[in-house]
């Protein structure tokens, strides 16, 4: 240990340093590529366009809630309610628009249901933000409570029954393809591009990162910290609600346990993607890779003869690997760059 501390850092030249920096920043993409290569080489019928599109399509919902979660974590907070908000949004949409099961029978137009669920998502984000920012209650506790209670509201709304039979105009978003690429995939990619730009190329995004790193300094610099945090929580709620609306379209309705377990997938994706749980560090490109990595593993397990129980073991192992890699990255940067 003493030797390591005393060893002089081996500094690299500017080009090598830039190359290594890029490699470290995008390590998760490298892991994704390796996993896809291994799966393609070892699993029969895995290497085909349809499978890769499935990986992307199945990643849509976890992918969208992961954006909101990543924003919250980068801003130094937490939003555990995203899964419940997504599920309840799907239930609201199905309750208002579906024709069968325990639906309301209103058969509202899809665009109207979208507006309603987005408003619900924004209201939930606002509620979380109010409790966290104004009442100074820990975000973990607040959003955990919201997570639990909204699941309960879902049960009240559905009576524990499925709602299904959405009109084709609603389901179109999940059944349409553009040049062979499912519209859901296009939406996912566009969302990541937009929010990546928002996080890295706008004042708001820079403020989110600064606040997550140290909320006191931005406050002293005149940044309206509370306003930024309100926006982050509302953004997270709206994105989760949008994901729920799309999920309803894909599943032609909603079941009471819809989306169960997606919070942990989103968390795993965010951590694997290199977002620091301490706040102030993280990029959405890494989160996107994390989401795709998990989706690839799920798909691989779906098409190979592996017992589903191993899915959790592999996911847990990957998270641990990601954290270890993060520490290796930090050490390498300190020594070589």
């Amino acid at each position, binding site marked *: 240990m003493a030797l390591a501390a005393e060893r002089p850092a081996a500094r690299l030249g500017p080009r090598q340093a830039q190359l290594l920096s890029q490699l470290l920043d995008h390590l998760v993409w490298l892991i994704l590529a390796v996993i896809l290569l291994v799966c393609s080489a070892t699993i029969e019928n895995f290497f085909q366009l349809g499978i890769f599109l499935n990986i992307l399509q199945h990643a849509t919902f976890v992918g969208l809630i992961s954006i909101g979660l990543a924003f919250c974590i980068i801003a130094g907070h937490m939003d555990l309610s995203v899964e419940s908000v997504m599920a309840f949004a799907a239930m609201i949409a199905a309750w208002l628009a579906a024709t069968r099961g325990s639906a309301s029978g209103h058969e509202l137009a899809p665009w109207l249901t979208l507006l309603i669920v987005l408003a619900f998502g924004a209201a939930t984000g606002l509620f979380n933000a109010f409790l966290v920012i104004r009442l100074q209650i820990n975000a973990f506790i607040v959003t955990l409570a919201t997570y639990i209670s909204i699941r309960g509201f879902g049960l009240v709304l559905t*009576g524990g029954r499925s709602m299904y039979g959405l009109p084709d105009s609603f389901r179109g978003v999940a059944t349409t393809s553009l040049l062979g690429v499912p519209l859901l995939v296009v939406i996912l990619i566009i969302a990541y591009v937009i929010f990546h730009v928002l996080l890295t190329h706008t004042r708001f995004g820079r403020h989110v990162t600064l606040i997550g790193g140290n909320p006191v300094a931005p406050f002293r610099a005149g940044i309206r910290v509370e306003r930024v945090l309100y926006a982050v929580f509302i953004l997270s709620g709206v994105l989760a609600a949008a994901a729920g609306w799309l999920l309803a379209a894909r599943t032609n309705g909603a079941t009471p346990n819809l989306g169960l377990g997606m919070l942990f997938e989103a968390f795993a994706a965010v951590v694997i993607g290199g977002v620091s749980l301490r706040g102030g560090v993280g990029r959405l490109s890494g989160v996107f890779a994390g989401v795709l990595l998990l989706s690839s593993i799920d798909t691989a397990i779906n098409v190979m003869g592996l017992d589903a129980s191993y899915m959790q073991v592999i996911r847990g192992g990957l998270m641990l690997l990601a954290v270890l890699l993060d520490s290796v990255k930090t050490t390498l940067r300190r020594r070589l760059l």
Partner: protein
Amino acid sequence: MVDLTRRAWLLAAGIGLLAGAGPLAAQEQGTIYYMIPTLLDEFQTESQKAIEQVFGELGYKVVSLDAQNEANKQLNQLEDVIALKPDAIIMNAVDFDSIVPGIEKARAAGIKVLNYDRQIRSTPFELTSVAGTVEIGQIAAGETMRLLKERHGALKGKVLQVMGDPGDNYSLDIQKGFDERMAADAPDVEIIAKAALQWEASNAGDIVEDQLLVNDDIDLIFCHAAHLTVPIVAILEGKGKKPGDIMLMASNGAPVGLDNIRKGWQQVEVEQPLYAQIYGLAMFAPKILKGEALTPGSYDVVGLKSELTMEEWGPNLRIPGAAITKDNVDDKRFWGNLTPPDQKAQVVE
């Protein structure tokens, strides 16, 4: 100061809500606790409704507790209930093994324990009323063979079995019954089994979507619960399949399965006789609570001929499950039609 005032108001509002819940008035025949494994399932929500109604009509106060699919939570709930000394407990277990110590403790405390729906053979009960999860799998296997024979003229083909959560005994038992019978009677049929984690419907959809890419010759999809078919039908439709191109079957008899049959997407739904299982418990409950012995034999349980036998785990009322097809889908005895029998349980004297 302002923050403190707000918090105080929130706290007061919360206490007010809790106080509003209030105790229910006790009824003359005694108190029964119903232990629910989860409420995220139509079978369970309808079971709760029916149990409260049927036992309520007999004069019992029924209190239901939801374990949210956590075996440990259910064991904790059971221990709390034992401390309250109710007259009886109706057990619908999350986990068939881990609940056994709690059941033994309850019986040792003199509380009558009735077992509903999920067969537990490792400890005695005052009465067990089940169709049998293994038997549900066997009925499903019989229907699978019939459908494959109709399609191919022989017992061959490929079946995708979409299970529930791989940690759930209920799903594992159905798989056991299904696989054993298929292996014995139709060894040439290829079965691919995949688990939808946490019984989550979109997981089932993803499995089917992936499998259709690597196994485009799947004849039949068998889901361990009807709600899993919701995204599957959407995906089949999205892939341009017509009803019946890929046959679909599910078990538990939920409304969505019956609806799929009416629309032609699903060929068979294996019914768990929800109402009959509950009436079966209710008709013997007064006798059990009086401490009287039950007499084995055939009993008519809301129109279904059921057998009461004495087993190692106590009196066992076996109520036959049924295959629902387009020919009998509108039969009101199927719980998926959500028309509970409009009669009071006929108590066995």
